């Protein structure tokens, strides 16, 4: 299980490829991987967004993410979990979040992956400030899942 707060742009697919390489023979044990990638859009609430700053609470953010993953591990039979969340200055098209769950069977993979991203959105201390045409604004609430 790995949880990372990432300060520079990342490719979710390169990260997944690298992470799975490190598993070695473990890849012969799992049958299912469910993955969610969240990407920054250039449109939010009807306004064009040119860039965004993602603030976090160093220390607490990592701890919360680890707790969310630990809860999912207690609830489902998970072979491995990878969570990466971007912070700092972000441009449309950049990956913001990656959640990947490896299991024996697909039901647990889908359910745990979705649970982790929902919990992350509701409890992990991250805050978005968007730059739109007429200035900056804090995003005040999350989209529903």
């Amino acid at each position, binding site marked *: 299980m790995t949880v990372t707060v990432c300060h520079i742009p990342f490719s979710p697919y390169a990260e997944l490829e690298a992470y799975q390489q490190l598993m070695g023979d473990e890849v012969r044990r799992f049958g299912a991987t469910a993955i*969610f990638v*969240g*990407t*920054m*859009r250039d449109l939010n609430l009807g306004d064009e967004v040119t860039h965004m700053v*993602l*603030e*976090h*609470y160093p*220390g*607490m953010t990592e*701890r919360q993410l680890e707790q969310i993953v630990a809860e999912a591990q207690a609830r489902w039979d998970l072979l491995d979990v990878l969570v990466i*969340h971007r912070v700092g200055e972000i441009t449309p098209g950049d990956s*913001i*979040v990656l959640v990947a769950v490896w299991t024996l069977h697909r039901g647990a993979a889908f359910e745990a992956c979705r649970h982790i*991203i929902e919990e*992350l*959105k*509701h*409890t*992990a*201390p*991250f*805050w*978005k*400030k968007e730059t739109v045409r007429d200035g900056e604004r*804090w*995003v*005040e*609430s*999350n*989209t529903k899942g």
Partner: protein
Amino acid sequence: MTVRVRYFASLREKMGRIDDTLVYENIATVADVWRAVSSGRPIPDQLLCAVNMEYAEPQSLVNDGDEVAFFPPVTGGSG
């Protein structure tokens, strides 16, 4: 007792500072900390709080050396 108080996101901007260090003796709870840094106001409904990087309630106890944080609703993730 000494308590470090941290502010994040829009609250940090409203407070005009990133943290405070309190040395009051009459602080027992998170609500007391908030009153000390906000001229005696109650904690706004929307505001979230944490003690030592774990979510806490206004009535949660605060001890010497603790780090207390206040912040608006979180908006991480995407999609």
